[in-house]
């Protein structure tokens, strides 16, 4: 009976109450930060004595926040494009290739996801110092693409595994060139995987803190580095305003993902 929702009895009440508590726990920081960003207290008193938009004004009046956000957007976009392109090619080889050691190669390409980021961060930091790539956009994009690649490969490879290759072969039999068949049959069929890969690799770069802390220079800062620096000096409500905008972005991404999924699946 334990797996029948309607026949759990009193246990259902207990479990549902607990689940509600956990859901509240998960929502608490997100809701709290948004409310805080509109509160008028510089010392983050809560509930706030009054409501204001001044932290948002302060945020937009400070060019360093805007610049950091634009830098992050630029690096994350380039990372997503590179990771999806490289990941797409790699996924085709991993899923369809006929060579020994495929599992080992797949494991190797996914390793950046499991290795503690701090280890990779100091390794690539030292390496780029030697190559003169430290603190450059190229350096950021390359390092973030390494970290994002697993998040691109997993959804694309999964989608490709679920795609019946005989449809692509049928197109070739009907006269399409192999490349045409790939572009007009296969890629559209796995577009949900490609789309997820783009979102995940964008977020992998956009939210990345550790490598960015090491790589950042006074002239090139991503948004997480800017937030990190502010957090270490004081807990100003401007961070809450910036954070709330990030929450809004997350919500927008979730809605777009849900809508696109629904549209693409039909």
């Amino acid at each position: 009976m334990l797996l029948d929702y309607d026949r759990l009895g009193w246990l259902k009440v207990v479990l549902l109450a607990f689940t509600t508590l956990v859901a509240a726990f998960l929502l608490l920081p997100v809701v709290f930060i948004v409310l805080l960003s509109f509160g008028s207290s510089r010392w983050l008193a809560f509930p706030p004595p009054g409501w204001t938009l001044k932290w948002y004004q302060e945020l937009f009046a400070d060019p360093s926040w805007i610049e950091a956000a634009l830098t992050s957007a630029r690096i994350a976009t380039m990372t997503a494009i590179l990771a999806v392109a490289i990941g797409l090619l790699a996924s085709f080889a991993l899923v369809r290739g006929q060579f020994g050691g495929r599992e080992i190669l797949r494991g190797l390409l996914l390793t950046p996801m499991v290795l503690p980021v701090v280890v990779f961060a100091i390794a690539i930091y030292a390496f780029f110092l030697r190559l003169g790539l430290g603190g450059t956009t190229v350096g950021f994009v390359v390092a973030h693409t390494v970290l994002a690649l697993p998040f691109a490969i997993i959804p694309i490879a999964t989608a490709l595994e679920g795609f019946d290759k005989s449809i692509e072969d049928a197109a070739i039999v009907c006269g399409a060139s192999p490349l045409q068949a790939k572009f007009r049959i296969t890629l559209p069929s796995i577009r949900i995987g490609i789309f997820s890969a783009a979102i995940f690799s964008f977020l992998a770069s956009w939210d990345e803190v550790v490598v960015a802390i090491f790589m950042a220079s006074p002239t090139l800062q991503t948004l997480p580095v800017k937030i990190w620096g502010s957090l270490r000096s004081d807990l100003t409500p401007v961070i809450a305003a910036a954070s709330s905008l990030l929450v809004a972005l997350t919500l927008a991404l979730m809605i777009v993902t849900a809508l696109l999924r629904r549209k693409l699946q039909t």
Partner: protein
Amino acid sequence: MSVEAQQGIATPRIPAGLGGLLPALMLIGLFFVVPVLALLLRSVTDPAPGLQNYAALLGDGTYARVFFNTFLVAAVVTIVTVLVAFPVAWMLAIMPPALASILFGIIILSMWTNLLTRTYAWMVLLQRTGVINRALMGAGIIDQPLPLINNLTGVTIGMVYIMLPFMILPLVGTLRAIDPMTLRAAALCGASPLAAFRRILLPLSLPGIAAGGLMVFVMSLGYFVTPALLGGTSNMMLAEMIAQMIQSLLNWGLGSAAAFVLLVVTMALYALQLRLVGARRTTGGA
């Protein structure tokens, strides 16, 4: 699709299909494998060739405490995460779809929200004059603010918050794969709910708990941001110590040796986790 089925259709393409892997392998080889190996090399050559960095690391009480703390925090976080995640995953697996999708939405929102944003929120919530202390004092439960931040409590709350989705989501899959009939049968045969839980539900979900728990443990071991912001100086974790050795102390030899220790431990546990998941897949597929 079997290999024979694929070979049966003769489409002209590069025989091995290895070409597509070249860009990925070049990227990972040049900018991941080489830098990590160079770091490893540095740990035995900087400042002089030899194993003195490792000797210093393993022989010193201060470092031993950091190692101990790292494992302690990771273990506490894993245990709390498993205990909290299990009932939630259980409900998610069986609740009506409409309710489940709201809950999934909340989980994804928390998971996708910027890591620093979430940590900042906990810093403000948990501080001495923060909402939680004020609420507890206002309710008369305590009369002194509790030290909730810059200690083990703060790190545990912040880390459990981050790890919960990584435990809940895979566990839902495990629980959904269990046939409800087995539990109905147990009830019919007179098993009490407790007995059914202990002898059927728990053992059947154990592979999922073990695999998810191990993943949370591995992720916690190497975590940097949350411990650095919510933890105290007296319970520093390994990742923070590595960052400090490199960034503030510029001690590359010691820092890279510590990084290599973290790498070896993580990879060993990851290999174990892969075997657990692999074992679950083969038994689940049979």
